[in-house]
């Protein structure tokens, strides 16, 4: 049952082959027996799940079911869930029971999903390995000595390990696509503004975007349909019409123009990963696509630019955590400054502190022009690279990550080496473009992700291009041993 997709399970539920309560119990049992070794979930919510499953079963028997009704999923613990602990992977919010639902949660609940629990993640979504979580690292279900990627590492690992049918994730510099690649699942970061950020705990507000993490492009389309759309409660929500993301999944790729940025295939790319991406490109040629080389000349500036913009915005956003109204407060503060300083010093972990300090420095008097303003200008250049590319091609294709999953602890002590893991994913965030990671042929038993980047609000095209590959290959169906 747990190997089935949303589409298959939805059909089974509506045909009365099994109930949502049965399906939910099946997944809760799997979490019970398998999650201890993986640590995908921060909080498991069996009561909330079974209540939602019962409600879903009633909707199904009343003939009022949508494609997601009764489907068990996990919410990344960055999304506020009313009455349920929302930690964001941090000690700072270890005691935080959210008083409201994020828009994404509200919409998925309205669609009838069953929330099994809250997925582990890097603290405040800052990390590429899930090792910065206050709740301990998530292990990669394909090899437990390796990382699942981050920051949506719990979401990616639990979808790969079949501990939920799908999950939500968020992506500020690659946090959906990179873990999706390292765990062998399908992940989509929509266009900036497509999915509401209301109730999604902010990291870098001009980059953050929520999206689905699933086992197929078809499922990603169904999840995105429920998650996306204009929200007046998010001031940067885009007032764009919402297409039917499933309608064009099977459109022919005959004549589709795919651009391969030469900068994404340089010496930094592992040879095995390159070969897997090449094999997928060959499939696209067979499907009738035309593949051309393009250039995104400012690619090398994406990581440096990001490590000014993201920390600057994070230092501002995370100033709200002051130990006064909610979250962690230190013991016996001697005065107000001591209360702020120790609550923040004790509540935040190492990586979060590093980024707050970099951001504070970059925004401090006398440094603004040299750092933040300069970065915003280069961001424009990076964005212009894509603009030029999309005048020639329909989608941009490359690897999601330079290598397969690295070992636990391998890069944890060296922030700069860790940051370079997101070298291919960050540019799409800086430009605000939609991006997707799709599993291709594994290398030495470890998953590899193919990245697709589309034009603004063209998620439907990405889903179509990903789905066609999944119709002619079985890479996305591979499951880790023992799962």
């Amino acid at each position, binding site marked *: 049952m747990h190997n089935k997709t949303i589409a298959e399970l939805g059909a089974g539920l509506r045909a009365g082959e099994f109930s949502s309560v049965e399906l939910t119990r099946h997944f809760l049992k799997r979490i019970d027996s398998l999650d201890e070794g993986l640590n995908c979930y921060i909080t498991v919510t069996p009561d909330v799940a079974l209540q939602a499953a019962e409600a879903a079963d009633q909707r199904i028997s009343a003939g009022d079911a949508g494609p997601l009704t009764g489907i068990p999923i996990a919410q990344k613990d960055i999304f506020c869930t009313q009455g349920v602990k929302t930690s964001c992977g941090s000690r700072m919010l270890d005691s935080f029971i959210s*008083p409201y639902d994020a828009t994404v949660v509200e919409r998925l609940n309205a669609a009838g999903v069953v929330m099994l629990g809250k997925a582990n993640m890097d603290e405040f979504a800052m990390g590429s390995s899930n090792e910065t979580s206050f709740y301990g690292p998530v292990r990669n279900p394909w090899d437990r000595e390796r990382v699942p990627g981050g920051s949506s590492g719990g979401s990616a690992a639990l979808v790969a390990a079949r501990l939920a049918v799908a999950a939500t994730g968020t992506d500020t510099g690659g946090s959906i696509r990179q873990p999706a690649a390292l765990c062998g699942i399908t992940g989509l970061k929509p266009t900036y503004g497509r999915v509401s950020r209301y109730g999604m705990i902010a990291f870098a507000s001009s980059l953050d975007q929520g999206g689905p993490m699933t086992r197929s492009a078809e499922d990603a389309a169904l999840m995105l349909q429920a998650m996306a759309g204009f929200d007046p409660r998010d001031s940067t929500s885009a007032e764009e019409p919402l297409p039917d993301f499933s309608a064009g999944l099977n459109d022919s790729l005959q004549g589709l123009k795919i651009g391969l940025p030469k900068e994404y295939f340089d010496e930094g790319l592992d040879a095995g990963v390159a070969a897997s991406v090449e094999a997928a490109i060959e499939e696209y040629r067979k499907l009738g696509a035309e593949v051309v080389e393009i250039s995104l000349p*400012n690619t090398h500036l994406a990581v440096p630019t990001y490590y000014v913009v993201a920390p600057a915005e994070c230092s501002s956003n995370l100033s709200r955590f002051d130990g006064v109204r909610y979250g*962690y407060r230190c013991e016996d503060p001697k005065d107000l400054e001591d209360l702020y300083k120790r609550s923040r010093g004790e509540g*935040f972990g190492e990586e979060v502190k590093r980024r707050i300090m*970099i951001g*504070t420095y970059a925004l401090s008097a006398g440094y603004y022009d040299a750092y933040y303003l300069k970065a915003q200008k280069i961001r*424009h250049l990076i964005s212009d690279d894509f603009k030029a590319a999309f005048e020639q091609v329909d989608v941009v294709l490359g690897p999601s990550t330079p290598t397969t999953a690295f070992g636990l602890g391998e890069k944890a002590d060296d922030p700069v080496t860790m940051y370079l893991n997101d070298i291919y994913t960050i540019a799409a965030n800086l430009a605000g473009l939609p991006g997707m990671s799709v599993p291709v042929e594994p290398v030495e038993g470890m998953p590899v992700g193919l990245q697709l980047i589309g034009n603004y609000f063209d998620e439907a095209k990405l889903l179509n291009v990903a789905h066609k590959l999944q119709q002619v290959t079985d890479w996305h169906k591979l499951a880790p041993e023992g799962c």
Partner: protein
Amino acid sequence: MSLDRSDIEKIAHLARMAVDEDRIEGYATDLSNILGLVAQMDDVETDDVTPMAHPLHMAQRLRVDEVTEVNRREDFQAIAPKVESDLYLVPKVIE
């Protein structure tokens, strides 16, 4: 750009964030390395480039000036570290 001990102390103070005494040197090294990475931006000529403030170049949306929120004081204070008589308590600020 290389940061030293006193830079870290100053930055941590600006961020109102306590850092462990024995971690200061480590932060100085880490932050200097990150700034080294960031310094790649310096080689780019950007005098004629406009800064990108919003990925979609959208203007901030305005809304009608109407009350849309309900008072949920009790819910919000229930999750506060310390409250008394409907007020959030902090150490005494004015003697």
